[in-house]
């Protein structure tokens, strides 16, 4: 058999390559993934995307993967996805914003059960950033409610971080006053009375505080506070951890409608799962998000202050309820801020 060309063999080769192409349509392709996220995760995901791209290249050597990022206030970002921004994954500040997207049919209702730990691969909490040497002597939430303290915090209507801030203060007041709602309302009102300017996103507030030099204390994500201190000099700011704060769980989800349309489900799911791997958890810790993985959390134990944390489910009965009570039109926040 020395035929230079065998029709049979050729047909066989065609059949094999065809079936291969059908079975694995994405053998080598230009693929893009859009991660729509909230403000303070910019630096985390810039790093994480590099790490994940390297990992993806190992198993998909032919692919040219481009991961794109979009950042803004969490509520605003959710709104954009609802309005048609084609996010393959959303990594937002709080579960309610993803619920909103799910309610419009973009994401399956059980999204929070599809990944471990309430679909929140990392956690954070709410702390205070003050001027160096803490000239106003701010120690705990009470100091924020005092007359004459200028507080900087974003608008809970548009910012996820701002809602965590609000609820952290409320939770503290409840604990302190034995569950008295009226007293809690009064307390939180006093804090917002000290906050005349509300930016739309957490990063906007940070810039207001650190760059424009407005205010005595910034209520901020822990990671955001550390980032500001590292970027702009430890000689300018101090971080104050309150006695009690909230366990903030920023969740992540694959946007079903978009990935099914674009054929990016496998990629999007791998992307989010990578957040839970030791490598992903290390990156979270590096950017001052508290890792879920116990071994890695233990490794970075000294990086995070010990603080008594309560969850939103314990104190407020979950995000949907909290959202409705506090942040809907005419809700508690509107009542507080209107007068």
């Amino acid at each position, binding site marked *: 058999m020395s035929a230079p060309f065998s029709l049979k063999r050729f047909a066989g080769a065609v059949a094999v390559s065809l079936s291969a192409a059908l079975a694995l349509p994405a053998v080598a392709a230009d693929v893009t993934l859009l991660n729509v996220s909230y*403000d303070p995760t*910019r*630096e985390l995901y810039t790093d994480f995307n590099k790490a994940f791209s390297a990992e993806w290249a190992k198993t998909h050597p032919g692919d040219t993967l481009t991961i*794109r990022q979009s*950042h*803004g206030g969490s509520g605003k970002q959710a709104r954009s996805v609802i*309005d*048609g921004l084609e996010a393959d994954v959303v990594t937002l500040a709080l579960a309610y914003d993803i619920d909103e997207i799910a309610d419009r049919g973009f994401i399956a209702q059980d999204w929070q059960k599809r990944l471990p730990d309430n679909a929140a691969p990392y956690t954070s909490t709410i702390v205070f950033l003050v001027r160096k040497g803490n000239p106003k002597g701010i120690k705990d939430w009470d100091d924020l409610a005092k007359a004459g303290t200028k507080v900087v915090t974003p608008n809970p209507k548009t910012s996820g971080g701002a809602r965590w801030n609000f609820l952290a203060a409320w939770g503290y007041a409840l604990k302190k006053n034995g569950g008295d709602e009226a007293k809690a309302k009064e307390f939180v009102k006093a804090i917002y009375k000290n906050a005349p300017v509300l930016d739309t996103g957490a990063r906007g507030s940070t810039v207001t505080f650190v760059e424009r030099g407005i205010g005595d204390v910034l209520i901020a994500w822990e990671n955001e506070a550390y980032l*500001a201190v590292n970027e702009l000099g430890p000689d300018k700011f101090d971080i104050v951890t309150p006695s009690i704060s909230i366990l903030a769980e920023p969740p992540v989800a694959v946007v079903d409608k978009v990935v099914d349309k674009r054929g990016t489900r496998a990629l999007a799911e791998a992307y989010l799962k990578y957040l839970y791997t030791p490598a992903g958890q290390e990156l979270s810790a590096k950017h001052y998000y508290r890792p879920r993985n116990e071994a890695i959390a233990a490794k970075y134990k000294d990086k995070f202050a010990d603080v008594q944390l309560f969850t939103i489910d314990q104190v407020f009965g979950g995000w949907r309820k909290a959202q409705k009570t506090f942040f809907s039109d005419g809700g508690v926040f509107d009542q507080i801020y209107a007068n």
Partner: protein
Amino acid sequence: MTLAADALRTTTHPAAHALASEGLNTHAGALPARRPGPTNSEPKAVRIAIITVALLFLGLFIALPLISVFYEAFKRGWLAYVAALVEPDALAAIRLTLLVAGISVVANVTFGLVAAWAIAKFEFPGKSLLITLIDLPFSVSPVVAGLVYVLLFGSQGLFAAYLQAWDIKIIFALPGIVLATLFVTFPFVARELIPLMQEQGTAEEEAAASLGASGLSIFFRVTLPNVKWALLYGVLLCNARAMGEFGAVSVVSGHIRGLTNTMPLHIEILYNEYQFVASFAVASLLALLALVTLIAKTLLEARLVEDAQ
């Protein structure tokens, strides 16, 4: 702007001479109106005080911020400056901005000429409504302009079903950014042309027509040469606004890095990321554009005055 408009109105019309015989040129008798010279009746001290206040104000609110943009941009030297500009996301933003401005200018020149032509040379029902509509973008907040397109083309919007069926992306993509920019830059060209063309009237076109010129020939040999400087002026303003627009574009952009961020949006992102040098480096490009616009405007005005004499 008004200075240029004044000057424009006094332009003589060389093209008309070429086409119409001397007797037919009705504008020949209308001498350019001279602006009154400076009045020196105020006491010197008052004049000096007024000029000082004006200069101080300009220095404080315009020159100083402009200088500080360049100062911040070059704070860490040339290398950091260039690095910020050749970074892929910055290049993408610059490309997008140029593309959007280019499309806007072409579209607005076309629309502006057509609208000004129709308004100045013809009578038709709904004319005053059209004039009002052209002015609308001046009075509508850019944010509202952006939101309007979200309401129309968003996935919860009026045309959502059609757009999804055809897989057409408008908002959070190039078309939306172009639409929003078009909206805010809509009046610039038309607004420059309408008063001038109205003033010029239709006599020259009528003369040309009576001499047997075709419609197209009249447009390119009479109408267009008569308004060329005003048109250029409108293009200049339109371009500057198209490149600098923030609000309307921000609403429809989706802020995807390297894809839907224009220069103003990119500047905000860099600033928010504590990359101040990079942020001001890109900002300095926009500031340069402003300076170029200013110089071009001055040259143009000189040209207009020259023409008028």
